[in-house]
């Protein structure tokens, strides 16, 4: 009974941890499947988080905060597109530049506008996305398995959590079942063929980076106005890069991307939940080891278990139309 409770609690926590990774991972998926490498996920998330925190604090509306986060993030995504698609610049350099701009800009603007050390003002509950308790969640809590899953794993998250997991099948459907998706994937594999068919390679790639921007905006907004109550300097803390690792781990496919992000979330949740708890036969595991576990496992999994990850063929290569 007790370990069932434990699993349910860890699952709930893992879901909350994996949401920003999942949004960012899907964002990278759109962009990279279209042949535009995006190392700037981290930066766009940070911009999104800052904008969401700022606008939510100023307008008092979480929804306006989310909208603003998406717009700001899309703007930076298009900037990345302008540098790497229109001007055929190096996609890695452009992505790194966006990360630097985001880190500096958010801290500087935050300090200038609010004068509280680069943070945005603390948000009240009306200005955030609060957890939604599902009906009867408290009543069903004691029923083994079904009740626990219902009340501790599925219920009690905020709306962006559900949006993230809905985005997975949506992305799958868009990529594999629509004309847009077919073209997007083709642009990342063989842009010349797409061009021959009379479709604008540049147009498709811009559409892809815009999708990427939208999802990064969601990831950022989740961090600052759903999971916490305000923007804090550098609050993405490397999540954009972990999302990139998850993307490679998932071999650029949406459903495996979800599992990869959940895995990272579970590792994080376990490291927190098992801290200071005696484990049968081992005793209390030192905090340091518990905290290193996610990273150790990441290395092992990435190095040993995924096999050969093949990136989209035209990834990182600007498309030059033959004259």
């Amino acid at each position, binding site marked *: 009974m007790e370990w069932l409770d434990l699993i349910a609690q860890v699952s709930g926590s893992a879901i909350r941890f994996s949401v920003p990774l999942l949004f960012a991972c899907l964002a990278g998926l759109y962009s990279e499947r279209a042949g535009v490498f995006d190392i700037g996920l981290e930066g766009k998330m940070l911009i999104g988080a800052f904008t969401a925190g700022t606008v939510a604090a100023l307008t008092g509306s979480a929804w306006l905060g989310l909208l603003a986060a998406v717009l700001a993030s899309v703007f930076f995504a298009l900037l990345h597109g302008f540098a790497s698609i229109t001007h055929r610049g190096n996609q890695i350099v452009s992505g790194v530049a966006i990360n630097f701009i985001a880190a500096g800009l958010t801290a500087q603007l935050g300090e200038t506008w609010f004068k509280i*050390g680069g943070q945005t003002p603390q948000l009240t509950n009306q200005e955030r996305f609060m957890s939604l308790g599902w009906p009867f969640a408290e009543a069903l809590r004691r029923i083994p398995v079904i009740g626990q899953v219902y009340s501790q794993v599925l219920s009690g998250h905020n709306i962006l959590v559900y949006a993230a997991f809905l985005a997975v099948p949506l992305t799958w459907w868009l990529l594999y079942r629509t004309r847009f998706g077919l073209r997007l994937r083709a642009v990342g594999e063989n842009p010349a063929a797409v061009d021959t068919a009379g479709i604008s390679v540049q147009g498709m790639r811009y559409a892809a980076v815009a999708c990427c921007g939208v999802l990064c905006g969601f990831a950022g907004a989740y961090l600052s106005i759903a999971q*916490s109550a305000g923007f804090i300097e550098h609050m993405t803390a490397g999540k954009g890069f972990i999302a990139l690792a998850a993307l490679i781990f998932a071999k650029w496919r949406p459903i495996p991307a979800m599992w990869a992000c959940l895995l990272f979330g579970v590792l994080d949740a376990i490291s927190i939940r098992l801290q200071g708890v005696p484990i049968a036969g081992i005793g209390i595991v030192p*905090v340091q080891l518990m905290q290193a576990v996610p990273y150790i496992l990441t290395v092992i999994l990435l190095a040993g278990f995924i096999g050969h990850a093949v990136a989209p063929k035209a990834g990182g290569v600007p498309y030059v139309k033959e004259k």
Partner: protein
Amino acid sequence: MIRKLFAAVAMTALMAGASLAADVKPAVVYDLGGRNDKSFNEGAFNGAEKFKADTGVAYQDFEIQNDSQREQALRKFAERGFSPVVAIGFSHAEAVKKVAAEFPDTHFAIIDMVVDAPNVASIVFKEQEGSYLVGVLAALASKTGKVGFVGGMDIPLIRRFACGYVGGVKATKKDDEVFQNMTGTTGAAWNDPVKGGELAKSQFDRGADVVYHAAGGTGIGVLQAAADAGKLGIGVDSNQNGLHPGSVLTSMLKRVDVATYNIFKAGQDGTFKPGVTVLGLAEGGVGWALDDNNKSLITPEMKAAVDKAEADIKAGTIQVHDYMADSACPY
């Protein structure tokens, strides 16, 4: 010739003395949590601001972004003639030691750590005593018999908070359970409210209904999670009762503000004294916060119990164990 030299020396000495008293240039270097962590560093900031308001003397401050900036910041302030230079946080110890040796005429101070040098004042607090008091309150406020503690970086200093807290809880209710979590093992653990919130949630899931944090900026997330879940949080260092009125049981006050103010003031008055100062309950260096935001949460029985514990500690009849004395917690 010699008389001339004497006169010159005397003049310089006079002018130096005058300049020390009149244009003292105090400076403060915060730790990684940053000036506005609403906790430890903000205490120092409040003390410095109060000094500015009281005396009209401006001060300079610096928020470090990474460990390598500690030395740079201290050296820059010393080079530019600032004195006293106050370093906030134990992590500055090595840097203070090194820079203080390079600038023997500059006065330095460090909070939370002892640096043995002729021009350094070290201020340390008996956090275990204040933590004991909030432990008493937590035990009395808890309905489940389970309370939590979330620490920042896993270091002996934070274990000292934890140990005092456990002592207070167990002295009040022998069988109560205390869950302890540390946020991390690097400086980043002072500024990770998302993780702090998750740690608090995991403790609530295990049945805790009061959680005390000693985690700087990370604690903002702890108190937020407590308020979101309808549980009680306990603030630290600064008075955090007002962050979520009605959801913060109390705050363990550590008067970093007073310490910073006093060092600045001593610098201005020319009464700076190197050496170690230990501030405990008896010296008013630590305590617990009671104000309009939490007075409805503190029942008369709780107040009586904590007042008694306070008197006993001051009188010496209760000795709160100091974790840092033997790296162990007997409770």
